[in-house]
């Protein structure tokens, strides 16, 4: 009997304390003036390698600070996790996340530590700096180098069939016909990993701005749409065309990203529309074949205006929940990442595919063919543009499902583009933009 009030108290206390999650997941300070930082990166093979290498090299230079790498899922699941952890104050001390529109969706003014007082911010590439800045303040250090969104192709297959790199869509489709006749899958698609389906649309963006230079601004103001802009609609059309012509690998619906890389490296498929960073996984897993892999921009209607769509590196950020000695250590870690030593560290872990976003960082002499092909576009004036997600804060979250539908022949291209416009509308409203 006399235990009852005690139980009551305990149960009530339990119920009340269940409401606060503040004490979860804090990492411990080590004794003796040492600081341990936690560092969240995405769970791709590549990111884990880079994270571990950065942690090792940074601790070697700063023995008082250790960095523990944690991983998170990629794609929409990862976005959700980052937002939830930020809003509950439960984020790791330092974390890696996309720059551009996804970075904007994190409400950086509220959740991230501004880095404008750091000396290295002045050494950042301007293109990169705008993609990790909002409201005139900069929040991120660059994670690796610039990446191209393009068609990776097997040069051995091209050499064997005597094909030329196409600049126009018609030439590309003509190549595909000859590749198919030789018994090789012309275009690899891997729709089981839905994010891989977006490249024909997102990677076509240079060709969109080449035809309609004001598209990004008008798109952000709700004046231009994918369904009604002839240039923007082309990406969806291309996706449908390669499917309808029967140019996809037979298992496109069930294949995954890793299957796609394997097919490309082994020459079972000739083209794989992909982010060029994928080549570092090929270098790691198929070192003999890595030299066969090259890259060209997604072909356009007009050969003269054909060019490459470029992705800005992801950023490394400090959440506002990091404070005290950890904040100082985290700032040091970011300064290391944004220094030539940091670029070198990243380069050891993962084959660089494009220029670094820090002035003074150089690519090693023995870069891959993909990096050389990328550089040719970057060197040509007007040969490349940043992807739309870095020029406009809006990216619809359902694009990957829509492109899977269009690319599998479930939904016609025009219909898919119209559906994406509705998806974009929701995102713009959520961000509270003018004119929506």
């Amino acid at each position, binding site marked *: 009997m006399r235990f009852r009030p005690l139980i009551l108290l305990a*149960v009530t206390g339990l*119920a009340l304390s269940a409401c606060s999650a503040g004490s979860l997941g804090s990492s411990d300070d080590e004794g003796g003036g040492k600081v341990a930082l936690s560092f969240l990166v995405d769970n791709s093979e590549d990111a884990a390698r880079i994270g571990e290498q950065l942690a090792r090299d940074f601790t070697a230079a700063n023995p008082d600070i250790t960095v523990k790498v944690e991983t998170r899922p990629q794609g*929409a699941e990862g976005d959700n996790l980052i937002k939830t952890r930020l809003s509950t104050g439960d984020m790791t001390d330092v974390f890696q996340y996309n720059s551009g529109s996804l970075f904007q969706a994190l409400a950086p003014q509220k959740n991230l530590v501004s880095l404008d007082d750091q000396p290295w911010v002045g050494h950042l590439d301007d293109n990169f700096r705008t993609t990790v800045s909002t409201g005139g303040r900069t929040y991120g250090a660059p994670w690796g180098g610039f990446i191209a969104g393009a068609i990776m192709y097997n040069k051995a297959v091209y050499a064997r069939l005597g094909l030329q790199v196409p600049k126009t869509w018609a030439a590309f489709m003509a190549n595909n016909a000859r590749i198919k006749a030789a018994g090789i899958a012309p275009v690899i698609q891997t729709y089981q990993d839905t994010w891989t389906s977006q490249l024909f649309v997102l990677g076509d963006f240079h060709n969109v701005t080449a035809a309609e230079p004001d598209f990004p601004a008008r798109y952000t103001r709700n004046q231009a749409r994918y369904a009604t802009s002839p240039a923007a609609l082309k990406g969806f059309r291309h996706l449908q065309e390669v499917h309808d012509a029967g140019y996809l690998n*037979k298992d496109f619906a069930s294949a995954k990203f890793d299957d796609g890389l394997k097919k490309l490296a082994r020459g079972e498929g000739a083209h794989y529309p992909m982010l060029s960073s994928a080549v570092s996984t090929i270098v790691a897993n198929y070192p003999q074949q890595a030299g066969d892999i090259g890259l060209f921009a997604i072909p356009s209607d007009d050969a003269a205006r054909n060019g490459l769509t470029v992705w800005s590196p992801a950023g490394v950020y400090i959440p506002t929940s990091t404070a005290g000695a950890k904040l100082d250590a985290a700032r040091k870690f970011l300064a290391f990442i944004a220094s030539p030593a940091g670029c070198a560290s990243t380069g050891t872990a993962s084959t660089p595919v494009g220029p670094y976003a820090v002035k003074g960082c150089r690519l090693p002499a023995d870069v891959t063919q993909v990096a050389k092909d990328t550089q040719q576009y970057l060197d040509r004036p007007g040969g490349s543009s940043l992807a739309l997600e870095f020029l406009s804060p809006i990216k619809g*979250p359902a694009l990957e499902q829509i492109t899977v539908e269009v690319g599998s022949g479930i939904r016609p291209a025009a219909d898919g583009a119209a559906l994406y416009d509705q998806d974009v509308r929701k*995102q713009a*409203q959520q961000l509270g933009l003018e004119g929506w």
Partner: protein
Amino acid sequence: MATTTMRRTPAGRRATGAPAPGVGARSPYPYWFYLPAAVIYGLLFIVPTLTAFYFSLTRWTIFDAQFIGLDNYVTFFREPALVSGLTHTLVYAVVTSGAKVVLGMLLALLLTSRIVGRGYLRSVVFFPVLVSTIGVGLTFTVLMNPDQGLINDALAVTGIDGPAWLTDPRYALLSVALVDVWKGVGLATVIFIAGIVSIPREYFEAAKVDGAGAWDTFRRIVLPLSRPATVTVILLSLIGGLRSFDLIWAMTRGGPGFTSDVIASVIYKQYQAGFYGLSTAGNVVLFLVVTAIVVPLSRLLNRKEVDL
């Protein structure tokens, strides 16, 4: 178990239900005794429900919320995936529920007959219910792979060219429903077994004396007298089907494209995308839809039981 409680509902309500207002003084417990439960109930159920209704009227980014009236509901009902999601949900619920009733009844008949190893077979049919849904989903994703999966390999041996179970938009939803039936039929069977076993033996003996065959016995005795069990199975599996999510998410993530999206996965994707107000509005809608289907159905089925 289920049958007895179902049948004795009117009596049970009198015995265990809450006392009517005004008779509270006769309660055997002092008021403070209810406090822990009341606090938990309030904090974990009432408060979240009320805040959910409020947040469904806002544009909510977790960081801050802006009141926008019924805009979320307008957007949600305009969502193209919603209409197909609603259809898929109904198809999924009806298919799984129907298959569980038919298969569960057949298995229950088998497992109440005099067969060897009856106890063992009864537990085997129940095993899939105990396995984690995500585990089942991932396992079947591997088994149903069109090129390397065991199912199509086995079909190939018999000369059948198996379909692309989960990646063909025509079959994806039904393939998941099939796995759901496999996983859930054990529970239906157990409920039916209880229903059949509780039918007094005298009826069967009397029917035998009157010269009734197997089919007549089933149609005139087993089927009507196990109605409470049937009602339970239909309701449980229909509710389960309407709010199904975990198996679909583990196996197809609503794909390919949106072809196996159900309401719950449509809502979840809005949540993933950070449209917290919109997804909360979706949950309110789901709550109303499930209520609108299940409450009248439950009334209807239970009324027939009283008429019996």
